[in-house]
């Protein structure tokens, strides 16, 4: 016989009551853990996207929205391809690479895909001369990344996934996303027919978890011809050499191209950032709810338990239990409830985050041990604190309650 036995026996006598009293804590911890995990991994994903995208600026048609671009749904809105040359001729400091794109809807074996025309960087080789026309004018003060030396366009086609540009791509070649390869069973070397034209699969991109997985990339001019779109694009990605340069690019590009919309990549992901921020705030709200509702629930449960066990407590006091022992008895019970709610909540919350994170936020979630410990500690702290006053009142019970006519 010890305190732990005393507490655990009492709790296991009525397991359903025990579960009910932990429900509020469990649900609160579940929500907190799930929201926090998804938020953290979503923020990391956004951070990685921003990092991989670098200091990028996007030129879109005036009427296009950021969501249109993000979902590659820009079939009806275009810009003249000559805008690419205009940007190059302007010789803006800090412009490292340009990537014009033309997105159209297409199908492969009745599966919808996004056919994206992209200009390989080797096509810019001749245009590189344009930037040396105004000798010394392309100074970007503070940036040390002026590409010095001859450029070699020999990057692997798979680098399109991470670099967002491709070095070499012939007119009859295509690079396909991971999802496209999966449902169509296409591999490098295979042929694919789209919009009446046959393309050779050059490479399959690694899975990115973005809309690029369902894209087929072909030469921009090939796509223009296949679709009779003319010499147009519907997005131009401008890769800056560094953040400093990107900051000044936006207004200068807007001035250069008054018929276009110029945005930064951070604006594109700002919706996601905004959602992440909202979720962060939501998690704080959940903490508040957890404290109030969960704590109130536990306090009520323990207070009710104290009322039910008045005679028992009186007897224990009569038998020689100290008031502090009685207090510890109820606090231990509350701690066990908190532990059960915390462990259960963390497990459920983590599971929810893993399942829903990939489904709703498109991020892969893995456990954050530090945060799980914090959530568990919070559950324990809340339940113990909530039970403190009822436990103290139990310790102050009149031991005479053990007698029959009191």
């Amino acid at each position, binding site marked *: 016989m010890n305190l732990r036995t005393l507490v655990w026996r009492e709790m296991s006598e009525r397991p359903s009551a025990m579960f009910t009293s932990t429900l509020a804590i469990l649900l609160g911890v579940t929500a907190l853990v799930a929201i926090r995990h998804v938020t953290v991994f979503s923020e990391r994903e956004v951070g990685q996207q921003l990092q991989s995208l670098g200091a990028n600026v996007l030129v879109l048609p005036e009427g296009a929205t950021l969501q249109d671009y993000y979902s590659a749904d820009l079939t009806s809105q275009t810009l003249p391809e000559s805008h690419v*040359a205009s940007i190059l*001729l302007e010789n803006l400091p800090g412009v490292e690479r340009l990537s014009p794109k033309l997105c159209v809807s297409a199908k492969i074996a009745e599966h919808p895909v996004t056919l994206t025309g992209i200009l390989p960087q080797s096509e810019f080789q001749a245009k590189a*001369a344009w*930037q040396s026309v105004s*000798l010394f004018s392309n100074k970007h003060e503070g940036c040390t990344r*002026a*590409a010095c*030396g001859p450029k070699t366009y020999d990057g692997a086609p798979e680098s399109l996934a991470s670099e967002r540009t491709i070095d070499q791509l012939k007119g009859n070649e295509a690079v396909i996303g991971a999802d496209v390869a999966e449902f169509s069973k296409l591999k490098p070397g295979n042929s694919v027919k789209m919009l009446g034209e046959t393309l050779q699969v050059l490479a399959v991109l690694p899975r990115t978890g973005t809309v690029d997985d369902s894209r087929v990339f072909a030469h921009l001019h090939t796509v223009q011809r296949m679709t009779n779109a003319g010499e147009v694009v519907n997005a131009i990605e401008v890769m800056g050499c560094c953040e400093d340069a990107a900051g000044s690019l936006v207004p200068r590009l807007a001035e250069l191209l008054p018929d276009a919309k110029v945005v930064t990549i951070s604006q594109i992901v700002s919706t996601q950032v905004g959602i992440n921020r909202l979720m962060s705030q939501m998690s704080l709200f959940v903490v508040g709810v957890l404290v109030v509702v969960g704590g109130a629930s536990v306090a009520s449960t323990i207070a009710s338990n104290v009322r039910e066990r008045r005679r028992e407590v009186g007897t224990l006091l009569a038998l020689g239990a100290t008031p502090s022992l009685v207090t510890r008895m109820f606090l231990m019970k509350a701690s066990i409830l908190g532990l059960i709610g915390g462990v259960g909540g963390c497990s459920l919350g983590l599971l929810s985050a893993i399942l829903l994170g990939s489904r709703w936020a498109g991020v892969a979630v893995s456990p954050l041990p530090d945060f799980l410990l914090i959530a568990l500690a919070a559950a324990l702290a809340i339940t113990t604190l909530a039970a403190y006053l009822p436990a103290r009142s139990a310790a102050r019970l009149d031991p005479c309650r053990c007698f029959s006519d009191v």
Partner: protein
Amino acid sequence: MASLCSPVNAQQAAAVRPAASAAEATLEKAAAEGKYTFLVFYKTNDSATQAMTTVLKEGLSTRAEIATNAYVQVGQPGEKTLVDRFDVSRAPMPMTIAVAPNGAITGMFAQKLTPEGIENSFVTPTMTKCMKSLQEGKLVLVSVRSTEKAMTPVSLKEFQADPHFKDRVVSYSMLAADSAEGKFMKQMQLEAGAVKGTTTVLLAPPGVLVGKFDELATKDDIAGALAKAGKCCDDPNCKHHQQQQAAPRTATRPGLLRR
């Protein structure tokens, strides 16, 4: 411009294959004569094209000895060679390209041409060489000598001989006091009177002034400046990359002049 670069040898001109269009012929003839060619690319003879043409004619009216012009209608099958050469098929139209006698592009003007633009297209002889080489993707070392007898710095020779660089670096020499190179001196922020001995200027594509080095600079100083400005070479074991990664340079090293 007081003088032009040397005209292309007539025999060399004859060795060039026959031009497919009038514009090409004009370009080749101008190169042979040591003249600049202003090529106007257009799609239709709209108001923008007419305005550009007017400005160009006015700008070249007093420069008939050193410049000529030609018109290229993009879309004409006969003009495909020129269009592809200057890669203007998708460029905003109309566009004027100034071509130096050696083939270097010294000016590109899309949709609008100004008299200042025309003026700026006439560059110094050394500049045309440098721009040509830069447009071919080469590193360019320019030796700016105070006198004819000024020595070529050892560092320059070593740099040129270095296997990492020898295939992609060219060097040119000029006199600091040459009035024909005044514009270039100004661009390089060099005072003719301040040049002692030989100052070496390193230029990298697409047109970046990497650094200026006095006679005391070593080959490593030059290579280090190149590494600092960007990728020095393709050798992953290049010590300049390693040095750059190990300790970012903040202090001015001996022999390295300020830009």
